[in-house]
């Protein structure tokens, strides 16, 4: 159903990253992971995902810095969904011009629904 849609998960917490990868892979997505914004940008040079799931608070290159550099890349740029533990996830998303947001801790149903919605919208 999902074909081989490719997702990029950018998350510094090993355990959360691992969990998201398992959840999304179990639904048939192809998942690429990055432990911070710098790794994510390097990944983008090699393979274009269909959607990016982005944590904000990360070492080295955080979500804000990633978004700034990401916006400088030539289009087409896949949509970004912010996944954050901050109180105001929607504001974080607005700050960096992301297409969607998800507040931690989230239910995996919500995660899958959100991913599905954004992939359909394309």
């Amino acid at each position, binding site marked *: 159903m999902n074909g081989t849609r490719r997702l990029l998960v950018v998350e510094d917490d090993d355990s*959360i990253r691992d969990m998201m990868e398992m959840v999304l892979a179990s639904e048939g997505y192809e998942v690429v992971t990055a432990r911070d914004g710098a790794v994510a940008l390097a990944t983008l040079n090699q393979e274009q995902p269909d959607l990016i799931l982005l944590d904000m608070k*990360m070492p080295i290159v955080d979500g804000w810095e990633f978004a700034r550099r990401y916006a400088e890349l030539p289009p087409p740029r896949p949509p970004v969904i912010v996944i954050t533990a901050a109180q105001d996830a929607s504001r974080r998303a607005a700050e960096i011009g992301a297409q969607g947001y998800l507040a931690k801790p989230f239910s*995996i149903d919500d995660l899958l629904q959100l991913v599905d919605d954004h992939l359909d919208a394309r």
Partner: protein
Amino acid sequence: MALKTELESDLFRLLVEGVQDYAIFLLDPDGRVQSWNAGAQRIKGYRADEVIGKHFSIFYPPEEARRGKPAYALRTALEEGRWADEGWRIRSDGSRFWASVLITALRDGRGRHVGFAKVTRDLSERKRAEEERLRLLEMERGARTQAETALDQLRAIQTVTEAALAHLELDALLATLLDRVSEVLNVDTVAILLLNEDEQVLMPRAAKGIEEEVVAGIPLPLGQGFAGRIAAERRPITVDDVEQSDVRNPILREKGVKSLLGAPLIVRGRVLGVLHVGTLYYRRFNANDVSFLQIVADRAALAIEHARLYEATRLAREEAEEAIRAVQLRDEFLSTAAHELKTPVTSLRGFAELLLRMSARGGALDSARFQRAVESIHHQAGNLSRLVTQLLEMSRLDGGHLELDRAPEDLARLVSRAVEQAQSQTERHTLTLDAPPELWAEVDAFRFEQVVANLLDNAIKYSPDGGHVEVELAQSRPGWVRLAVRDEGLGIPADRQSHIFERYYQAHAASHRSGLGLGLYLSRQIVERHGGRIWAESAEGRGSRFVVEVPARVVAEARA
């Protein structure tokens, strides 16, 4: 010709006789009156028939006549041709008038001395006018002096007022006041005593010339002594002679202060203290000095009051800022804490839901993934539990309820367990332990474990590139146990080392390394409650070494 001469002579005589403003008359060579005109009668009061033939010395005050002034006048006129004078003369009724006198010696065509012409003018009016002028001049001079004095005082008050306005900090204000007062009142000593309202005593607060007053700091009860009386009676007091007075202050006496003047410092009816000045010479302070000092004291009092209000306001503002900072810190902490708690909960919830989902579908994860999911759940539950413990410990510390439950403990075993646990969390770091087979100390095991776990956790967290973490446990000196944890990580910048044990502090907060910022704070509290200490040795980029030293207590000796 002769007729003409006679006529001229008659005319001249008439002219002379008719002159009213001048007494013009002739004296014979001996000084007897020969002729008399209308002016002479008017000025001197004698009629011609009364005076012709009399010696002119009757016109002089008797004392001058006795001293021979008339004879001297004629002699001088004869020798020099004329004699001029201004002085008192006597009228026929005995009254005096101020006269201008000119005596000219008269000689005939052959040069023989035939007598004297005398012209006298009454200058009494002019003299009075002159005296009046001098009197007015004197008055004006006096008025000007007064005005200048008033101006000087005004200036002096101005300087004191300026000083009062310029300094809002009490000590600086008092120092300036002392200088200005000693300068404008020209005194040798100045002292300001402030009233302690609770104890009803005056405390020397600032002094010039008698600085020992302030150093000695002897409180003076209200109503006693010179200053005490000024404050109690709320009025200025002068002491002309300290030796002869009831002034008991030994410092004033030792300094040789002779005279004193003091005034109360009063603001809105409230006595703040006393300002007094003294001189090393005898000085009688007059009413002017007294009222002047009181004016100065009033301004000084107002300034002191302002300075105190300013000080109080500043303190209140600082406290408010402190409170705001504390609230901000607390808010930031709560936000950090929420974030930190959400992280393990996110993965716990995700893995749990994933497992439920799989079992609901009747499927299963492959065994490797299942293993990882369960391990993660276990690990994150541990993390969550540690965070909650830290929060509870902090709340206990805040409430003052952190009580140690000490018991003999083998620290070698405790630390070894902690090192194994930490090693299981990381593959990139190599942890080594150097410890004796057994090392006993009386500690709160649960809390000591927190300290060890926290130090290991930090060593790993702040060595993002991996590396060695060396743990050392040993008896550092008899009765003391030392634990050291050394890493090869980021290190701590010198300017942050003094803060790392503060609550909520994160030396590397900017780089988003996780944690509550409580670990080292709690560690220090725990170590200090054990009677020990904790410190860090570090250089930025060259790793850190954290050292804990606690007393082993009786146990060590008992087992030794």
